[in-house]
């Protein structure tokens, strides 16, 4: 038993690591562009860039006081300093007069500057022997205009390796430290409030769908004509896009007939949820109905049901005593596995009905490059999925003695 629990915990942790790896690659690597530029909104400010790099975990520490580089120009023209893959000092007419590979030792840099007849450089501190893998000039590719005798700050910094960054990021997520969003507001608060709103629509919808689909499937069982009509309705309704329903229903009931309220989200909130819930139910009930139908039909054909009938047991008793217990396991697993995705909310519904839930947060987070928010939402849903999966397994084992005895998970 304990061995099994440990095994399950390890596999859950492995999945968490896997989810985090996907998020790390998608959101914290250069896939979405330079994370520092994103964080600082393309600032040229050196100190800001360096502290952003530190905050993002890209560098461990910075020592700005390491040395102080002063460039003296012999002419009264401006020089433009750029750093791409080289440290380049341009004259104002664009001609490059210095190119030094970065990182360079301080000595190499100063030597290059001193070798140029136009400019001289002085160092205020004796760090000429610092090793090249520690020196990096903190410009991050931005162009900076130097004027004559501009004191210029460089830094010694220690980059953090990607595996270390991955580990740091994972541990902060595991401790539910999601940090702040783009507007510097704590994400945990936002997640909680918005999650509740999405859940306020999704949870009632789901249970109405579940119960409604079940009752429809029960009604349709054994009634050929009704079954045929419902199947046709289900297939037809599933074929039309959800957007169509949302557009038409909203236009009809909110705009034209004014039967449902038109106002942004605010108290009282309950009337604002009714139409989205009804739309979610209408869109979602059909695939659930078809699933229930297949569950019921499949079990109704089993020998034990036929045997019960042959023994003269009434239809009601067959349903309650023989069928439902058999359905309970797979149905509750199905519910448990789908529940975590409820918190996501419907992106389309929330966008069109202006409900500030998690769905709309995702859209905003993607558009604003709010990687912290995306990480947080995805992580929370993934954790919920794992918890529910474990719960579903336990429920399944409870209802299905075969799983218990074989020790399956």
């Amino acid at each position, binding site marked *: 038993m304990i061995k099994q629990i440990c095994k399950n915990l390890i596999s859950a942790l492995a999945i968490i690591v*896997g989810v985090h790896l996907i998020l790390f690659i998608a959101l914290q690597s250069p896939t979405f562009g330079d994370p520092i530029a994103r964080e600082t909104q393309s600032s040229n400010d050196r100190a800001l860039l360096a502290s952003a790099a530190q905050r993002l975990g890209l560098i461990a520490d910075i020592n700005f006081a390491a040395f102080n580089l002063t460039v003296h120009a012999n002419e009264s023209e401006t020089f433009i300093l750029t750093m791409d893959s080289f440290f380049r000092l341009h004259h104002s007419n664009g001609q490059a007069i210095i190119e030094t590979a970065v990182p360079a030792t301080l000595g190499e840099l100063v030597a290059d500057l001193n070798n140029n007849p136009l400019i001289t450089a002085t160092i205020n501190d004796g760090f000429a022997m610092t090793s090249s893998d520690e020196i990096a000039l903190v410009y991050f590719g931005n162009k900076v205009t130097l004027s004559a005798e501009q004191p210029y700050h460089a830094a010694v910094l220690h980059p953090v390796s990607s595996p270390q960054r991955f580990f740091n990021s994972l541990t902060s997520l595991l401790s539910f430290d999601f940090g702040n969003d783009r507007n510097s507001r704590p994400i945990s608060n936002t997640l909680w409030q918005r999650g509740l709103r999405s859940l306020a629509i999704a949870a009632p919808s789901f249970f109405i769908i579940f119960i409604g689909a079940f009752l429809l499937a029960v009604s349709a069982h054994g009634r050929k004509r009704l079954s045929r009509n419902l199947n046709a309705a289900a297939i037809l309704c599933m074929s*039309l896009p959800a957007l*169509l329903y949302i557009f038409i229903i909203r236009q009809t009931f909110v*705009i034209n007939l004014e039967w449902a309220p038109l106002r942004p989200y605010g108290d009282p909130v309950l009337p604002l949820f009714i139409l989205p819930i009804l739309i979610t139910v209408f869109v979602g009930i059909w695939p659930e109905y078809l699933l229930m139908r297949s569950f019921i039909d499949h079990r109704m054909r089993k020998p034990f049901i036929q045997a019960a009938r042959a023994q003269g047991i009434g239809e009601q008793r067959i349903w309650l005593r023989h069928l439902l217990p058999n359905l309970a396991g797979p149905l509750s697993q199905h519910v448990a596995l789908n529940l975590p995705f409820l918190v996501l909310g419907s992106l389309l519904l929330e966008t069109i009905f202006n409900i500030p839930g998690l769905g709309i947060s*995702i859209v905003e987070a993607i558009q604003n490059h709010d990687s912290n928010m995306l990480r947080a939402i*995805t992580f929370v849903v*993934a954790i919920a999925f794992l918890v529910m999966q474990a719960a579903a397994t336990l429920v399944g084992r409870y209802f299905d003695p075969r799983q218990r005895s074989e020790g399956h998970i």
Partner: protein
Amino acid sequence: MRFSRLVAGLYIAVALVAASGAIPVEINNDFYRGNTSVWQSAAHGAKVALIIGSIAASTALLIGSVLGFISAWYGGLIATIILWMATSIAAIPGILLVLILSYGMGGGISAVFFSVGLVSWVGVYRLVHAEVLNLRNQGHVESASSLGASVPLIAIRHILPCLKPILAAQFVLHFMYAVKAETVLSFLGVGVHQQASWGRMLADAWAFGDLSNGNYTRIIVASLCLAGLMLTLQSHIYGRQK
């Protein structure tokens, strides 16, 4: 079934004609406002839907079946790693991952089908894995293996034919998912650009206030085209199940 094949054929024909450039769409302001070229856009939408659906489904099938076969055939560590990848992807809501990937790739038609393909392979993998585990012990496969046939040969000559029904059903399912995903992505602005699609028609209808202006044509045409394709595909699955 015959009727659905006819309809499917019609979609393919329209898509091919659109791809050949024989259905011009005049890009002007009336077009964006949904006053002109609605049917022409719908025709181009068929082309886009078929491209997205087939490439996304093919990608999902290719990745899923290759990985499913490898993990079932070889087992051990590699199977564990593949299972780990699949479960991790499955733990993230599909639409969220598709959104993130599609946005990361900059939107556009290729972003849509690759992101859907990269997310959908998990379902294929699970089915193929289970089926190959089953088939591995079948007589014809064991014989081929003992006769020294190479693994790729066994996969293609002996296992793939048995997987065809599953793969065909999965192809259709993921095709449908990809086409539906395109409507959501286009509505959110990370879908198809620089060409007409059914998703874009719906997105433009909302953005340009078709309903407020009493113009229902664009929405109805796009929805009917989508529904027609979905019905055709669903009846294909349903027909096969029968």
